[in-house]
């Protein structure tokens, strides 16, 4: 553990404003968006390879999760009745604007596909809707990492290169896990594989963040965020182990699938809380910036993206 850093602040007050996003709405949105995106991709591929049960489960997961995630996103707005203002403009500099143009077509396509799947109407339209959802599924699962990273929150911004892989892996663990849990064994092999690979990527990318020796990795180990990250890793690792060992039995599939989804959910809560904690303590704003300044003044060539993680302490 790094020793306590010396720094100055204005009466210990935060420098940046902590996010005003609501919890649990926003972490739930991150989780549901990931599960929806990855299961939509899985569903479309299962459809074209003739796996009707897996297709059905994946479509219902994608549709249900995306509709719920839209609901949580709207509830989080300060003026929910103005949610359509999100589609006034398209700004590539705003991940939330780009994300709105990913989420809107995705949730429309995935929601409609899930609805006709339940009702049993229009089989061709179903395949088209599933394909549209699959196109937007990957971006939906990873844009949320950019959403968090593209802020001044130290413990989010510093890891902007790794966060999309945490979220992408977590999305596959959640989507694959849920599809694994609810699909008959005869067709669940693709979900089983996706869940295992996704959980592996999630754990590896998380390790890359937590093992970073920069001070901004500290909030991932401390307090509420630290406990959530521990729980997330425990769920994901045990889910991964069970999936490998007994994932091809019905009870094993259910238990490991649910554990992987729970791990993904806890990861989103942990990352969210770590960011909030790093914003609330001026240490995480001042110390990395001081290090950056010191490195610049020492004439060191700071890497072009100039982050604290590249500077030795």
């Amino acid at each position, binding site marked *: 553990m790094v020793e306590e850093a010396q720094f100055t602040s204005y009466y210990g007050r935060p420098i940046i*404003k902590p996010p005003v996003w609501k919890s649990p709405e926003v972490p739930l949105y991150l989780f549901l968006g990931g599960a929806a995106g990855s299961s939509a991709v899985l569903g479309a591929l299962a459809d074209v390879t003739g796996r009707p049960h897996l297709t059905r489960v994946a479509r219902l997961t994608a549709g249900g999760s995306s509709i719920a995630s839209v609901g949580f996103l709207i509830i989080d707005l300060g003026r929910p009745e103005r949610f359509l*203002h*999100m589609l006034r403009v398209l700004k590539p500099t705003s991940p939330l604007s780009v994300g709105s143009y990913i989420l809107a077509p995705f949730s429309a396509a995935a929601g409609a596909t899930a609805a006709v799947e339940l009702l049993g109407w229009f089989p061709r339209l179903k395949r088209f809707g599933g394909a549209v959802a699959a196109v937007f599924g990957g971006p939906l699962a990873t844009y949320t990492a950019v959403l968090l990273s*593209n802020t001044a929150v130290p413990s989010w911004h510093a890891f902007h290169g790794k966060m999309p892989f945490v979220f992408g892996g977590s999305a596959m663990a959640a989507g694959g896990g849920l599809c694994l849990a609810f699909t008959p064994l005869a067709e669940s092999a693709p979900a089983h594989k996706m869940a295992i690979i996704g959980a592996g990527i999630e754990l590896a990318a998380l390790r890359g963040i937590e093992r970073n020796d920069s001070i901004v990795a500290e909030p991932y180990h401390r307090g509420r965020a630290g406990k959530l990250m521990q729980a997330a890793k425990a769920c994901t690792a045990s889910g991964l182990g069970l999936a490998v060992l007994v994932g091809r039995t019905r009870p094993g599939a259910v238990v490991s699938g649910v554990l992987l989804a729970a791990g993904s959910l806890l990861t989103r809560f942990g990352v969210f809380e770590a960011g909030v904690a790093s914003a609330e303590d001026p240490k995480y704003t001042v110390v990395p910036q001081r290090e950056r*300044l010191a490195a610049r003044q020492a004439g060191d060539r700071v890497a072009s993206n*100039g982050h604290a993680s590249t500077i030795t302490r």
Partner: protein
Amino acid sequence: MTSISSVSAAYTGRDPDHRLYGPLPDVQGEAGYDGDHPARVGFFTDTSVCIGCKACEVACKEWNALPMDDSHGTRDVIGLSGMSYDNTGQLGANTWRHVAFIEQSRPVDLPTPTFGRPGDDRQDSGPSPADGPRDTQAAAQQSVLNAEALSEFDPQTGQSGTDKQIRWLMSSDVCKHCTHAGCLDVCPTGALFRTEFGTVVVQGDICNGCGYCVPSCPYGVINQRKGDGRVFKCTLCYDRLTDGLMPACATACPTQSIQFGNLDELQARADARLATLKRQGVETARLYGRDEDDGVGGAGAFFLLLDEPEVYGLPPDPIVTTRDLPAMWRSAAAAAAMIIGVALSAVLGSRRTR
């Protein structure tokens, strides 16, 4: 129209025109205004002459009809911060000017109690007309005051032969109206916009309260108003500017600590003021937000400070978050492709049992 052309910068990472980062000589032009737009305006806040009267805070609240709040930004609550003469606490949705107050003490060796005008005790501060009489005065004091007596007199300041010298720092903080404004970049609705004066303003009838601008400001200026849901911040009195008036805070400031004007004129004035102070031996004076090569491309509202920025609650090296956005989009695209690849190999690599 112009937002289309900024697509390339955000996606490719090539930013030769400094659309995301770096100096930008014509911010209004970059935002799409015609060549005959007004000059860029701003604030130069010279904290070396701030007396902490908070007239700027009052004028701002009055003109902009801002709700009352306490030092933590809680609306419609009155209360003392309990930390200093600063009961305003921070900038936020309901506070667009905030006078920071810092009391600093440093140990000095007795017997040199400080009397007379501020600065007279500073070494190398040049000749003083009081030099002659002051020497005899100090000698007289030495004869009656000693460390022991003083420490008995005031146990708080007298500690083992040293006394403390006190100075007060006061600084009126405000939205920086950055050249590259994080809040403006990330706003998904277009509620935040660049005015013809080069300032950054929220349109209250557009903002849907998504809150994305709040953690994206590297200075922690903008915030959501509880009970309203939308975000608010300094408009640099956009309404007054369009009528040819000065912003309320600059109008109210009794010491010209807050100076309003065209940005290039203010920059020249600040450079001259810094040179004067340096010549007078104020080694700690520095300009903050003046450098157009800094992380936000220079600020429209910049400061002359007498200590490190973080002492005043300002970030020492702020960088607009969207500088790294091209790299983020590339990572997200790679991760999305990874999901497709994993799903494809999972599906194609599994044999159907039926």
